[in-house]
């Protein structure tokens, strides 16, 4: 009998459950569906309050503020993070606490911050210790934290490592923080090659040819830069080993211009004219011709390999006007990509492999366009701002660097891949052209 009663209770419970379920069904029914499809904010809002300085105030330079500035500037190079202005913060963790237990996340969600980064600086004589923490303000989570110790002069490297960590957390890619920028700048009316950090900081001159130098190109490992120079009167290709300071020359008869490295190989493509016609050839690092890539009566110039190395984009005059073509190196099929405008040149392949940036030469100004590698979705990124040329992608395909004459002298600019936030990268004496970011070295 006892068992029997128990069963009865079971049944009552089951029936009650069914009734509850039918109730819940009834409530589900009266949802009103609303479509929301237009996010106003295109970047992730992040709050970075003042860093806490654990050291006494004898030190004159506030490394806390310095590190914070480096972090804010660094994150702006992701193209998808925006630091909320400090004036909006209603709370200063630098005065109280910076760990999860000490933070009231409502103070940050209320100003719209989706992430919070806190920092602590400890100065130990010439060295510096930086603790950085990333929090998700809505989930009230501690995401990642790092402690960096090093010389005070390495503060940029340390903070940029943390930027890489954030980028890796959000996108699975390390970002451009380890990459270098190569560009041409005029020095005493000569054009020489410079290398700087990814953000234009710390530029260094690496060539002293006292001549015209053009179109530098990074090798995938970041050890070699190939470029064209007129040192010996004729445009020849030079390959410079940055570590060993060695320079080798490739000088066939006629022009030797626009070198581009094959991804992950020490092989490069370039335009040579020794046969009487401008054609693209594949060359070893020592200047031996491996094979001829294009074979057409029109001028073929400016080779640019796809990131997987299986295709090559180039400019050709075979249809009468200079246009951009893509050749599949396996099937040898050639496809014309650009059809708008009479003069399109200087293709740059995005590192995700989906898009090409190029220059559209117009009647009044030259502008930068982006087009899908199938020839679809052509977008003009610059407009009414002088001549804009020499586009090159960042290694995460989020940014494009280019040169512009919008302020008179040609300078290097950066914008996002959708053309937003165009800003000048660096201001040096003379004019700057031909910027290109190196690929991130996997070992770094």
């Amino acid at each position, binding site marked *: 009998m006892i068992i029997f009663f128990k069963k009865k209770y079971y049944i009552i419970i089951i029936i009650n459950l069914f*009734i509850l379920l*039918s109730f819940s069904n009834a409530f589900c029914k*009266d949802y009103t*569906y609303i479509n*929301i499809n*237009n996010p106003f904010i295109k970047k992730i809002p992040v709050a970075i309050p003042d860093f806490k300085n654990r050291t006494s105030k004898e030190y004159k330079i506030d490394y806390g503020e310095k590190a914070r500035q480096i972090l804010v500037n660094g994150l702006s190079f992701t193209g998808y993070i925006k630091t909320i202005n400090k004036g909006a913060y209603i709370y200063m963790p630098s005065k109280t606490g910076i760990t999860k237990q000490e933070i009231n996340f409502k103070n940050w969600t209320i100003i719209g911050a989706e992430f919070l980064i806190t920092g602590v600086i400890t100065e130990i004589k010439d060295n510096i210790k930086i603790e950085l923490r990333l929090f998700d303000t*809505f989930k009230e989570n501690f995401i990642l934290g790092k402690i960096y110790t090093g010389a005070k002069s390495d503060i940029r490297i340390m903070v940029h490592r943390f930027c890489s960590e954030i980028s890796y957390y*959000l996108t699975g890619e390390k970002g451009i923080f380890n990459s270098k920028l190569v560009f041409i700048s005029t020095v005493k009316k000569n054009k020489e090659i410079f290398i700087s950090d990814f953000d234009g900081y710390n530029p260094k001159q690496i060539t002293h040819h006292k001549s015209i130098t053009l179109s530098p190109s990074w090798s995938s490992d970041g050890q070699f830069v190939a470029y064209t120079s007129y040192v010996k009167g004729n445009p020849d290709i030079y390959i410079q080993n940055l570590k060993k300071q060695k320079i080798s020359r490739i000088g066939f008869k006629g022009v030797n211009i626009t070198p581009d490295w094959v991804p992950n190989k020490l092989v490069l493509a370039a335009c040579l004219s020794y046969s009487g016609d401008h054609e693209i050839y594949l060359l070893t690092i020592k200047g031996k011709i491996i094979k001829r890539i294009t074979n057409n009566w029109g001028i073929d110039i400016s080779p640019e390999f796809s990131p997987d190395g299986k295709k090559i984009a180039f400019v050709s005059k075979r249809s009468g006007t200079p246009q951009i073509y893509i050749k599949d190196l396996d099937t040898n099929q050639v496809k014309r990509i650009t059809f708008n405008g009479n003069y399109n040149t200087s293709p740059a392949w995005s590192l995700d492999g989906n898009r090409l940036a190029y220059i559209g030469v117009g009647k009044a100004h030259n502008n930068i366009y982006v087009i899908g590698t199938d020839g679809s979705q052509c977008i003009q990124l610059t407009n009414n701002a002088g001549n804009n040329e020499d586009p090159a992608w960042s290694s*995460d395909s989020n940014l494009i660097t280019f040169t512009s004459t919008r302020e008179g002298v040609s300078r290097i600019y950066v914008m996002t891949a959708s053309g937003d936030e165009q800003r000048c990268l660096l201001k040096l004496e003379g004019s700057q052209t031909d910027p290109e970011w190196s690929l991130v070295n996997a070992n770094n």
Partner: protein
Amino acid sequence: MNSLYSLISRGFLAINNGYKNKHNLFLYVISLFLHIFFFLGLFFIQNFNSAKIFPQAISVNLGSLVSNFKEEINISQPNSVKKSINSPKLSKTNKIKTKANLQKKQKQLKKLKSIKKKSYKSSNVAINAKKKQVKKNKTDALNNVLARLKKQVEKNKSKKSSIAKTSSNASPSANTTYGYGSNKTGKISHKINLYNLKIISQINQNWAFNERVAGTNKNLEAIIGIKILKNGQIRNIQFEKNSGNKYFDNSVFKAVKKSNPLPELPKGYPFYKVALRFTPYGLK
């Protein structure tokens, strides 16, 4: 379920054994009642929802605002007035009466005409006068009947609405449970449409989404169900559907959280349940 079967079988056994175990039979009857209650519950409980003033599914499109409003108002006009005209029996009898009256009058007319044709061929003037009189009579009678009908209809209507108000939950199937006239529901749906637009703009403004971070997948869709209280506070944030993209789901969840509190609900709403369907197709 096994226990349920065993209970039923025990009940049958009890019957077969000639009501030996009265206790078992008693339990069997209870279970029967519970079953009936359960199935009735399945049928009717869904209609007990008194807060169902607003229409069930609104898809608000920013592009075609005006046309949507018109549609809503048209849809929300209940056809209770039409029904009440058709339903009362009194009006039917009246109609029959009027028909009968009309037929009589027509017969009289025909008679008159035949008489006229036979006897008063020459005096056309007199005939015309008579015709006019007949017409007048006819229209008067019609008008009277119409007026009477209208009065009765109004009476019925007032009776019906009073019934509806008193027993609003009793009749589950009828539209009259709402107890609102056509204009009122129209206004309410208009109000809630405006409110929906407010929600859309507020959440859009708080929604931070970057396509690069999400990856290149463009077919992202997430649905979040929320309950909005009278003062605009958001409660019960639940994912009805995940997009599968972690970043997208997070961004959407944060957008809802940031939008708390939403504007106050229009008057007459104790709460409001909304399913927000997020799709970032406006991006490039």
